[in-house]
């Protein structure tokens, strides 16, 4: 029974990916391209050689952070859709410290990451507090705060930290930048993301508090009746979730972008939510999904160059994966579907 469930949980995302690619192929055929060649180019572009792999991991890094951010809050039963705002707040504070404090090198990096985490955590605390003390809908508040953060960032790159005539902030000093690894595009930010992913996994599944947090997420009333401080868990999960996004913002700034600029982090928040949902709120799966999406994005450029299939086909495939995965997971919860699965597994047992 349990095993069947697990199997279904893996099969649904896989099936959605296959379906999405199938439709993608039909579109390519309609465009007059050979889908097999196009897909091969997509693969080469993303994983074909070690350089491309590095680029893919670099693109995956911010998605991992926002994915874990969404995943952590969902696990406690609250919906943090403000990953983008928290990510941006982290990068703003990081940018201020990196360019203004004069502290450089390793201490500078450490300070930037910690400050980024704090900024993201505090930003996420706002919807958390409003939810537990005023009963406000955390989804709406956290989404609205995304706009506040984006516009605040605008003030920084157009006014306060503006670098000359271009609307962008000055660059992070070279000594504070995160180093590239093995001469490839990806930096130690990726390592930080993976470590945080592993820590999240460990916390959720190997500690007593993590266990209780999941219980709160699955049934708040029962958690309350069993003596868990539900409100505290909700607030803490918001803060931690925001802190993960905040570190992500710092790491992205120090590792990849170096400057705040129009469009920085745009879309990362909702991408993260999709990663977490397709990864079924499992931190490790969420990371894998993030890498998969990054691969689609990186590979599509090669595909376009080699076969003339536009990158938007890759966007379509990404969107379809999300649609199918979410629909599939909803379908699995239907009573009719559950009954069918039970029948199947009962048959197996008889054999």
């Amino acid at each position, binding site marked *: 029974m349990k095993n069947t469930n697990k199997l279904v949980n893996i099969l649904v995302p896989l099936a959605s990916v296959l379906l999405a690619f199938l439709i993608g192929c039909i579109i390519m055929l309609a465009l007059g391209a050979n889908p097999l060649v196009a897909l091969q180019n997509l693969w080469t572009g993303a994983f074909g050689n070690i350089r491309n792999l590095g680029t893919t991991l670099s693109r995956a890094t911010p998605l991992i952070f926002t994915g874990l951010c969404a995943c952590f809050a969902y696990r406690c039963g609250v919906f943090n859709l403000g990953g983008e705002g928290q990510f941006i707040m982290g990068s703003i504070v990081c940018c201020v410290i990196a360019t203004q404090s004069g502290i450089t090198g390793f201490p500078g990096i450490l300070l930037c990451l910690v400050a980024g985490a704090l900024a993201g955590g505090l930003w996420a605390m706002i919807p958390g507090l409003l939810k537990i003390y005023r009963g406000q809908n955390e989804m709406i508040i956290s989404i609205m705060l995304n706009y506040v953060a984006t516009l605040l960032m605008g003030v920084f790159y157009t006014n306060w930290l503006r670098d000359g005539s271009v609307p962008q902030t000055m660059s992070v000093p070279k000594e504070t930048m995160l180093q590239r690894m093995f001469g490839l595009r990806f930096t130690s930010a990726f390592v930080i993301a993976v470590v945080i992913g592993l820590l999240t996994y460990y916390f959720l599944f190997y500690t007593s508090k993590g266990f209780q947090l999941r219980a709160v997420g699955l049934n708040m009333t029962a958690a309350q*009746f069993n003596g868990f401080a539900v409100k505290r868990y909700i607030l803490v999960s918001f803060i931690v979730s925001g802190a993960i996004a905040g570190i992500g913002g710092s790491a992205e700034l120090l590792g990849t972008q170096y400057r705040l600029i129009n469009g920085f982090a745009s879309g990362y928040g909702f991408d993260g939510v999709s990663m977490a949902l397709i990864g079924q709120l499992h931190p490790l799966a969420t990371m894998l999904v993030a890498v998969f999406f990054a691969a689609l994005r990186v590979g599509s450029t090669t595909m376009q160059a080699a076969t003339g299939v536009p990158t938007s086909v890759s966007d379509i495939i990404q969107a379809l994966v999300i649609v199918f995965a979410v629909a599939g997971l909803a379908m699995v919860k239907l009573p009719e579907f559950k009954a069918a699965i039970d029948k199947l597994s009962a048959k197996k047992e008889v054999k």
Partner: protein
Amino acid sequence: MEEILRMEHITKRFGDMYANRDINLDIRKGEVHTLLGENGAGKSTLMNVLIGLYQPTEGKIFLNGQEVRIDSPAKAVQLGIGMVHQHFMLVEAMTVFENIILGDRQAKGVFIQKEQRRREILALAEKYGLDVQLDKLITDISVGEQQRVEILKALYRGAELLILDEPTAALTDLEVEGLFAIIGKLTGEGKSVVFISHKMREVLRISDRITILRAGETVCTVDRANASAGELASLMMGRELAPSHYEKKENPERQVVVLEHVDYNKTAKHSGLSDVSLTIGAGEILGIAGVDGNGQSQLAQLITGVITPDAGRVDLKNSKVAKFMPQAFIEEGVSHIPEDRNKMGLVGDMSVKENILLKSTGLPRFSRFGGMFLKKKAMKDYALEMQEKYDIRCASIEQEARSLSGGNQQKIILARELEARPDILIAVHPTRGLDIGATRFIHDTMIEARESGCGVLLISADFDEILEMSDRIIVMFEGQVMGEYSGKNPPVEEISLAMAGK
């Protein structure tokens, strides 16, 4: 008097369970006919069949001598059957007038002839003495007036037969008088009323005839003139007292819970407590008898720290409770078998194992470094041990708790709550919906807890269970303690009357 409605041999089955079995009911023109019965006796199911929400599995319905098929609530309205539900079906943000004409099907053309409608409604209201303010919002009028709106709405749609489901539950005494006057006018004009109530006093006053339901079947129909409260109560309960399996204890040495003059949400008769004083002794089972929804849920939640009383004093093991939080109560040794096992007791999406260990993963036995690393092996071994000890029947302890039967779910909760070796156990409907085997097991386990010195509060809507288990019985009605009785040779009739508020 001529007959307006006859229900013949009505049977309604849900799966294997009979909610109604071979029920016969006839309603005469211009009478008030009361349906009397305990919770789960089948009153609501029968009425839902009558207004077309349910289709009967078997049986026929005759209206004015003609057989009818009522396949939807709209059909019921068309046939002149109106129902005022216990919880009103009104749109709060709309005015009284709008609520009354809402969903009315006699509209001609695109526009609503408001003036004409208004005149019609006012005439109806006048005729039956239904005093309503047509232009007020529903939110701004009293509960009594909302009820009058519901009645007016049903009459406006042409109801000849009006079903009132526990109409007095939410009313003040004065409003009840007003309602009775309205009922008098309705029957005077030849309308028939089906009255559903638990309250003996009201039933005896208002009814012409009374039909008693028990366990989904009709017991009998009696004329009010030939009925007495005591007789009705015993017909409703329908039992000879069977001797209890268990030895009853008396005079506990010390008290583990003391409530003094506790109030909670006092004005709400059905979800509040008013001036409740009681004690639970170590090594005794205190049974709370009463019809569901007379403050029992609030009592249980109060003694488990889920809600905070408005006034009064609560002592646990001789010290006054300062903070009402479930955590604090659990630390004081209070265990809780909550009324709704799926919602309050279990995390359905977690496994049997995780639910057994829900409260205890932080203990050194199950984790290292103060909860920082779970000992998965120890957790599994313990869960297996509990599965054996409490006879939890499941394919695997990794199975989701949601997928187990009610009895086995309850055993998970029992294992978790009793292995904490509580000093106080609050058990609310612990055997509701369970089969005989599981019920017996749970009863035996509760007696064992009593023998080891635990003070048990048993709340149940099942009167038999209360009689069987309790060393002492307290009856609750509308949030108040109606009386206290010994569990040894309890005066059944007296208790039944107290449960009905007399």
